[in-house]
């Protein structure tokens, strides 16, 4: 535990899931245990020639239209028009995930509204779809009129703007934009705000939408798998992997300071024992070939948590199923763990969900917390032929019926941002 924390510890006390593998905790847990993926056939822009054929789709929502009036979501969530009007498609996912997480934490919306001790930290890349639509209108009328909700619904802060207003968050509100490391940054800085004594509780929100405008630019980078069979498309650490599969959704974590959580009798998933970050300083898009920044980020997370490498019994890898990225992560893991005589179980749950970009870190932290409390460890069900570069890693195909006690959760984003968390089983 870092010296600045004054003994304050950070707990995960609530989770909300809107994910490709389920929109509630029980379904997510069952699919993680069974190794059942949430990838489905997709066709973008009505064009079968687009080389993107499967994605981690979000079920029971319809947010394809550029008009919020035409969106639908599960009827158990009460989303009023005054909130909906400024939202992006992924904001709807996030709204539902927050309502779910608050209920899971035993909190009512009134408990977080106008509470100076509660903050809201969001990870979002904005809505490229709505941005494109708004700007196309602007150009078509030569700037003479535009949608008044165009800014707040589409720029990268859209989650924080809308959710803070609806849930009346007064503690602290901010957003994180580091691509696929965004949600992990949100968790890390939320953890620090609590440890510094500035906030008692933070709602950490990661969300991403899945549509042509968000995903197809990655096809232009040749980063996406062209496979149509989900099991072949997303297969982290497999020798035949050929790119990532996009995904959408939202996951919300309720983080609370331990004594504050205890006072209200909160149920605990796990402790966020520490985190670390380090950058590659290497490429705008590709990982450092030896995972140099990731190695340092892991080291810093372990040091912050006061955990030796041999105490980590599960690593939820970033593992997106790209040839370069998985190899770099495997080298980083071997450098840190093998050298210390440790061999934790490693899996990438992106085999089941696809890669939801800004959401990834929160989604996978949620999966880890769930696994720790419910007593299982996710596997690598799509792994057939392990890549030689990953051969020394302990990569079980099937999930394990025992839960980890200390977890490392990795995320890496464009520009070489690497963020890692250490989660520990909480025992009073």
């Amino acid at each position, binding site marked *: 535990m870092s010296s600045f924390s004054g003994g304050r510890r950070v707990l995960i006390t609530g989770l909300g899931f809107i994910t490709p593998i389920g929109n509630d905790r029980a379904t997510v847990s069952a699919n993680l245990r069974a190794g059942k993926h949430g990838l489905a056939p997709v066709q973008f822009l009505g064009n079968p020639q687009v080389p993107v054929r499967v994605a981690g789709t979000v079920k029971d929502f319809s947010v394809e239209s550029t008009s919020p009036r035409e969106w639908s979501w599960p009827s158990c969530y009460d989303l*009023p028009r005054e909130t909906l009007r400024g939202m992006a498609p992924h904001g709807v996912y996030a709204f539902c995930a927050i309502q779910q997480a608050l209920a899971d934490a035993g909190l009512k919306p009134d408990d977080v509204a106008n509470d100076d001790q509660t903050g809201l930290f969001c990870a979002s890349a904005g809505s490229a779809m709505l941005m494109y639509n708004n700007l196309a209108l602007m150009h078509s009328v030569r700037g003479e*009129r535009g*949608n008044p909700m165009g800014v707040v619904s589409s720029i990268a802060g859209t989650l924080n703007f809308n959710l803070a207003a609806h849930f009346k968050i007064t503690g602290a509100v901010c957003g994180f934009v580091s691509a696929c490391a965004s949600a992990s940054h949100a968790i890390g800085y939320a953890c620090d705000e609590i440890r510094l004594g500035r906030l008692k509780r933070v709602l950490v929100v990661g969300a991403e939408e899945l549509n042509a405008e968000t995903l197809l630019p990655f096809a232009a980078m040749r980063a996406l798998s062209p496979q149509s069979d989900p099991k072949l498309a997303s297969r982290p650490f497999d020798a035949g992997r050929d790119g990532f599969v996009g995904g959408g959704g939202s996951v919300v974590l309720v983080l609370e300071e331990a004594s504050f959580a205890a006072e209200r009798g909160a149920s605990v998933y796990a402790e966020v024992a520490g985190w670390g970050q380090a950058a590659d300083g290497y490429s705008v898009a590709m990982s450092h070939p030896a995972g140099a920044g990731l190695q340092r980020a892991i080291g810093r997370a372990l040091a912050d948590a006061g955990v030796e490498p041999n105490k980590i019994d599960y690593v939820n890898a970033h593992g997106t199923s790209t040839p370069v990225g998985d190899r770099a992560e495997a080298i980083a893991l071997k450098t840190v763990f093998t050298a210390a005589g440790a061999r934790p179980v490693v899996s990438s749950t992106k085999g089941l969900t696809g890669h939801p970009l800004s959401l990834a870190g929160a989604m996978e932290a949620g999966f880890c917390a769930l696994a720790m409390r419910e007593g299982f460890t996710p596997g690598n069900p799509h792994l057939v032929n392990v890549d030689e570069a990953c051969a020394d890693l302990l990569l079980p195909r099937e999930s394990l019926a025992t839960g980890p006690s200390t977890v490392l959760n990795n995320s890496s984003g464009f520009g070489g941002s690497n963020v890692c968390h250490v989660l520990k089983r909480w025992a009073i």
Partner: protein
Amino acid sequence: MPLANLPASPSQLARYPVEARDAYERFRTTGDVNALSLVILAAVRDFMPKRSLGVGMELRSDMKLMEDLGYDSLAVAETVFFFEDLFKVRIQNTELMTVRTIGELEQFVIKKLAENANKPAV
């Protein structure tokens, strides 16, 4: 007089009640401004931020958008943009200050359409 610059069956009205869509068509094909009332009432109901207020409420022309219907400045801006986009007119911020009730909104839209009748569409 038909309004040639307005499209038939605009997407903005696709989800509106059939009587509002029929009224729009009557206005578009005949220029009858009396038909606009149904379109405006449907839009006012559609942009009410607090949906619960609108359930079963009979809208009257003397109702104030903000005080009676829960409109805020963003909802007013949305409504204005809707009419700008639907009728291809331009509405300045200063003009909005005169509109407080449903009836004033109706008269304002009619006035803007009259001003716009002989101008090219934007």
